């Protein structure tokens, strides 16, 4: 069980959080203009990155606010947390996806 750093509340136990999947997938500006395939990709298709993955979390049993995180999907480690609207952070070092497995 991880200790997750909520950008508003600080470190809290994993059980207080809700996972929201890939981050930075904006709702299309004009869904009606999309082809069926483009719409399907918005609705159903998400990246499934092995390694550093930008994703959404909600501190659902705490402040109930959403935030984004960069997390290594192999080691599960949080590499960065950031507020919605902030750009995806650039990491100093490459995540240790393979090395820590």
């Amino acid at each position: 069980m991880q200790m997750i750093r909520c950008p508003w509340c600080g470190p809290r136990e994993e059980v207080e959080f809700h996972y929201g999947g890939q981050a930075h997938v904006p709702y299309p500006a004009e869904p009606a203009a999309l082809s069926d395939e483009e719409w399907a990709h918005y609705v159903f298709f998400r990246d499934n990155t092995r390694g550093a993955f930008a994703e959404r979390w909600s501190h659902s049993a705490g402040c109930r606010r959403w935030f984004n995180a960069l997390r290594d999907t192999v080691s599960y480690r949080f590499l960065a947390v950031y507020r919605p609207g902030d750009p995806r952070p650039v990491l100093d070092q490459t995540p240790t996806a393979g090395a820590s497995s």
Partner: protein
Amino acid sequence: MSAPFRTASGGRVERSVPVSFTFGGTSYEGLRGDTLASALLAHGVHQVTTSIKLGRPRGVGAAWAEDPSSLVQVEEPFPDPMQLATTTEVFDGLVAHGVPGQGRLADIGDSARYDSRHLHVDLLVVGAGPAGVQAALTAARSGARVALVDEQSEPGGSLLGTTDLVDGRPALEWVGDAAAELAAAPEVVHLQRTTVFGVYDDGFALAVERRTDHLGGAAPREVSRQRVWRIRARRTVVATGAHERPVVFTDNDRPGTMLAGSARTFLHRYGVLAGTRAVVLTTNDSAYRAAVELADAGVEVAAVVDTRPQVPAHWAAECAGRGIEVRSGSAVVGTRGTDRVTHARVAARDGGAVDDVACDLLLVSGGWNPAVHLYSQARGKLAFDTSLGAFLPTGRLDDLLVAGAAAGAQELATCLRQGGAASATALVELGLDVVPVPVPSTPAAPPVTAPDLVWTVPDVDGDTSRQFVDLQRDATVADVQRALGAGLRSPEHVKRYTTIGTAHDQGKTSGVVTSGIIAELLGGGPDDVGTTTFRPPYTPVAFATLAGRDRGQLFDPVRTTALHDWHVRAGAVWEDVGQWKRPRYYPLAGEDVETAVLRECAAARTGVGILDGSTLGKIDVQGPDAGELLDRLYTNLMSSLAVGKVRYGVMCGADGMVIDDGTVLRVAEDRFLVMTTTGGAAKVLDWMEEWHQTEWPELGVHLASVTEQWSAFPVVGPRSRDVIQAVFGPSGVDAANEAFGFMTWQDTVLDGAPVRLARISFSGELAWEVHVSSWHAVAVWERLVEAGRPYGITPYGTETMHVLRAEKGYPIIGQDTDGTVTPQDLGMAWVVSKKKPDFVGKRSFARADNLREDRKQLVGLLPVDRTTVLPEGSQVVELAESGELPPPPVPMLGHVTSSYRSAHLERPFALALVKGGRARAGQLVHVPVKGRLVAVEVTGPVLVDPEGARRDG
């Protein structure tokens, strides 16, 4: 019964406190502080059980949790399967017997209590041996918050089984002083009989404390039997020591064969001699201590058989001084005996004659395996150290350090130094000022002669079928050879082929040996083979312990409405709806569900009924953009709703499927009250928050759940106006249609309690929902019931609610839908706005599958026989003209989602999702019911009052 193998004095057992126990049907006396193993050995009982496959005798092979063979079943005080004699503490009344490998569960539940605690510390020290104690002392004196956790009944670790001196006095005195100092330190939690069984992310460790197991029947009822500690540590020092490793040779499984260090533990800790005449087989210096100390205690040591050509001079001299023969360059190639070893078969390693040396105890040391389980669980990497002949941690992890024998330290002084140093390193990293603890002095250790690396001793005839690698699984070197011969190379495959390491001990003594044997057979080193994965838990943990208090009514929270006690008094039968308890119906004397529901329905259709609808979700949506947010999430337009009005709405997922529905009240220009289904309350709030926060943060909206704050009671039926007028008329409410129109709401006050009345109908009848603060719910409900008495007001439950709404064709989301149903499928195209350019789900309606003519649509079904109540969930098929179904697979048209007997229609009816259902209106289809085909007519979903004449009373 006397214990002939108990020493006259010494040990940690309480010689003045005898305890009586029964093993295998025989009564024995042990001492407080004994384990079952030590108590049996004190009586000369070595065989504990037989092996699982071959039925060979199995004894005590070690002194603690690494023992692969002394499996027992505890019967009293409560059946406990698959315990080890070596870790079971004896107490008065203990009844146990050996088991060959399958335990037995009690046939009743366990009434013992279990609980859990959370602990947050700077430093977690696992293991209270020399390294761990030194680490904990260092941290405690530095003012850190410390947890020192150890699995034994008292601290000391390996020191419990030695005669070591620390600071010139018995080591356990030093341990005792340290424990006293820790006990006095305010920020230290020191737990014994507590096993850290798993290490997880971010310094999270789990431990189980055995609080009363050693007390047997004397355990106080109010104390939990076991406790799970959930420990969050900023740093962890793993000081878990090492497990001695066996050497594999022919017939190495006979009782009386034991790890050398364990015999020292039985002697020094328990005051028990494990035999009378011993042979010691070793590959390293450590077993000489066992030979010398057992000899000094009166055991005749027939020989030390050292696989090395050069034996250590110091120890050779010590042996010579005691008349112990040392045979260099030799090994034990086999044993003789039946249920106890009688001879060790000794031969030079380069061949030659086999000498059968008589003995009743065969001590073995093949070196030491650091207990790297926790380090490995935390994803630390191991590497094989050839000079030590062991897999060692390759370093530290971010928040976990390893010290002492677990890190490969061989000598006591090294363990003490490493423990203190690891602790200091961690404390510095945490920004604490380290108060160093001087490393206590220890006697100079004799010079060490390099250990030999011997995994197996070849059988004289080349027969490997009785060379046991995993004693519990009866798996041998021959099995490993077969596995490799079959083409297997990975140790994971060999493990699965041979089952080595899969038993109760999870390969604590057999795992590394297997890697060594594979390496030897394939050529190459153990590093090339590696180990199998170390997985939690380190030792087995009872299910009930992990369940803790989350059992019975505490398994999941129970949510009740403010009126719960009223419903209880009214004799409600309950339905679980999510976590809520809702009245399903209120039977009168002699009524079953059917008659009660028919009565409740009739009341609502002809008089007046009242329902506790408080579990409906309620969300307060406030802000200048509240209407805009709702417009984007509901299929219809909400922003156009006038203050004082109510509108029904449907919400879809992005895939266009209905996820919830309910009514929305516009409370003010910038405020809405959104009602959701009972089960959807939390989901809808989360859904709205998610969209608002992650997609449209620019919208000025705030959301709050007010489900618990507002109670809500629909008052339903032609006489509901009379009741509402009677109760609220004095407050100024005019319930006439002209003054209080359908789908409008008004605020009022009753006895000082603010009340909101809304003309909403989920039954088609004239109806009001009465919303009131839950603090005033009982008072207002009772006023309504009192006022309704002249009209026969009838409380009704969820079942009647379902019937009434189904008669009107109103779907229940989650019952008449299943995540594959659109508003159009429900016949609710009218609720889908054509004006709005977009809302969540709209784009999906244009997909190919949504345009199919044969989509399943909500329809009504009327059984032609006017008597059959179709079971909900029944499938709908085409009318079988022959009267019989074709052979499977039979094409299905859909299924019955809701089905009831209607008091109003005086016949059963159903709602169903049927392919192309609306176009089938008037047609007959079949529904198979218990082997019978029931003909039903497809109708529209609205069967009562399709013209909507009743809603205004």
